[in-house]
């Protein structure tokens, strides 16, 4: 699809180890010359890339697009569609407040306010020290524990505004 621009070299400027890790993963996929087939591997490739780089800056998108034989616009279209993917840097601790129906009914909006106040950042932002990001997400499937807050992979259930300082102090 694309001419042989060395997008891996560009990526390596960001981090040689991470570039290598992503490339090893992409090489392990059964990619072919058929871009329509390769398209089926796009979401999992982006998941992996975001796991490695914590976010999906343009150079990562370009490299994934090149390896899969897709256009950058197509890759960006997918990233912008799914709220899980982000092309902005995120903090080491991603605080995700579920704002799905059940959690919302149980007061997720108050949790959002409290986290915003406590961290001094708004929903969708990352603090200047790069430690915390605050985002809202839709249902995580743990409605019996509503309202739910996820910090990276850890799940907090039945969260009250009083628990906010405690959750933050868990992030060391």
């Amino acid at each position: 699809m694309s001419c042989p621009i060395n997008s891996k070299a560009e990526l390596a400027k960001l981090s040689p180890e991470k570039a290598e890790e992503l490339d090893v993963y992409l090489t392990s996929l059964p990619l072919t010359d058929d871009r329509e087939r390769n398209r089926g591997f796009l979401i999992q490739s982006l998941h992996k890339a975001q796991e490695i780089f914590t976010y999906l800056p343009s150079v990562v998108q370009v490299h994934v697009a090149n390896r899969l034989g897709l256009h950058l616009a197509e890759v960006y279209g997918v990233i912008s569609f799914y709220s899980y993917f982000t092309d902005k840097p995120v903090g080491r601790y991603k605080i995700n407040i579920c704002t799905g129906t059940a959690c919302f009914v149980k007061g997720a909006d108050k949790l959002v306010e409290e986290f915003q106040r406590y961290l001094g950042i708004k929903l969708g932002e990352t603090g200047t020290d790069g430690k915390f990001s605050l985002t809202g997400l839709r249902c995580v499937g743990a409605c019996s524990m509503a309202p739910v807050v996820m910090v990276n992979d850890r799940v907090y259930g039945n969260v009250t505004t009083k628990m906010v300082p405690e959750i933050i102090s868990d992030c060391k």
Partner: protein
Amino acid sequence: MINLTINNLPVQVSEGQTVLDAAHKLGIDIPTLCHLKSTGGCHVESKTGSCRVCVVEIDGRPNLAPSCCTPATEGMKIITSSLRVINARRTMLDLLLSDHPKDCLTCEKSGDCQLQDLAAKLGLHRIKYKGEMSKHEIDVSSESIVRDPNKCIMCRRCETACNVVQTVGVLSGVGRGFEAVVGPADLRPLSETKCTFCGQCVAACPTGALTEVDHTYKCWNAINSGKTVVVQTAPAVRVALGEAFGMEPGSVTTGKMVTALRMMGFSKVFDTDFSADLTIMEETTEFIERLKSGKNLPILTSCCPGWVKFFEHQFQDLMHIPSTCKSPQQMFGAIAKTYYAKKIGVKAEDMIVVSVMPCLAKKYESARDEFNASGTRDVDIVISTRELASMIKEAGIAFDHLEESQYDDPLGESTGAGVIFGATGGVLEAALRTAADWVTGKDLQEIDFTAVRGLDGIKEATVKVGDLEVKAAISSGLGNARKLLEKIRKGEAQYHIIEIMACPGGCLNGGGQPYTGGRCDEILAKRMEAIYRDDKNAKIRKSHQNPSIKKLYEEFLGKPGSELSHKLLHTHYHGRRNV
């Protein structure tokens, strides 16, 4: 075959055809918006079914079905105009309009807008739903295309044109829900992308969301500036301009167009066909040199700025094989502002060169940094066929009643070889006419290379040039170009010469031509037929026999490929980022 009934009328269609196809067969007009059938050798059908304007009732199904993407099946009973269908279509349109600007009066697309037409057709005189309106920035970053996402109805036709037909890959749906918009990655400006400015997205857009950058006012200003303003008209303009004035597609309007341009106030009316002949002199010389040396083959034509930008972004490893010749538009500018300016005793900076082109990429091309061989911009202003039509209307000129007149000398003299540049295969045929004569040293009479003609997306032919069997290929539409280039890259195909045009069908289907609506196939065939008719009727049909071209070499350039030719008529290419 599949049998079904529509509005109680029986109809037969073949496997794979849709309910919409079946309705068309019966002469039933079902309104569509998002549906797009691409033509000109690029058989792509976009049936996203996103607008739901084409819904019909199917017996036995609880929901209405979009006819454009519902396959016809045996025994189907379809009703296309029940009250339920009519109400649903009106509601869909009403909802689309609720988030669409209401400035139809001043919209660029007014009169050619399919959304506007549909509102009239469905008799929608009042917009029931009022709600939030999308707010997006208008992208005016490029020389060629304006992107106004506020007018976008998310039909995704431009995406199909850009990604599937052209495989340029700039446009994609971005975001989701109400905020969703079609645009480039990061919603960056078009000027910072690999957009080729071919304008096929503009041709595909049913509304005013994608339009050309309007240079008509700039052009009126130039005409009234007191400077010497010369105009050149591209080959494909003359066979399409008449459509804008209700003339039959395929009318050759050259003489009327020349009269109109004189009436508008241009000092001299010249022909890009002249510089097409000049291009053949230079390109054929280059071709024969490469044939002899066996190096850098196949030679690729370089007349099309959309195609040039395409390979600069996406095929940098092949950048040594395109011809170094500038396009006829740029050759014209360089010669007008040097040779001709000197002849009439005008300084280059006191001359303004205007081009009328079937193309939107030509606007971008004229603004490329390197095109100032005359010491100033070689081509100052580029307007499309559509823009010329609107200027003629603005000037109150009754186009169809005009007397015919001739181009001015010397840059208005041309041959049949020049005019066929407007159709896919034409540049190659013109080059072969000259190459065959030059290689054999004869004035050959067999000059109709019909194997390279026609609207097919990829054509191949083996043509005798003297003792040589020249293997030629022609592609139109960048998706087809990509297929050819990938073969060359892998060493799977051996050609000597390849012509590539960005737009499917060549310039006659350029992004700046009058909109063809649903009659694209028929109109393109007629424009093409008109081009070859014009060639057939020409007194001289070989570029190297053009008396004004001979004189230009005698008086000024020396010979093809001379140092001065290289300075004025040749160029170099730049690798660009593939994003």
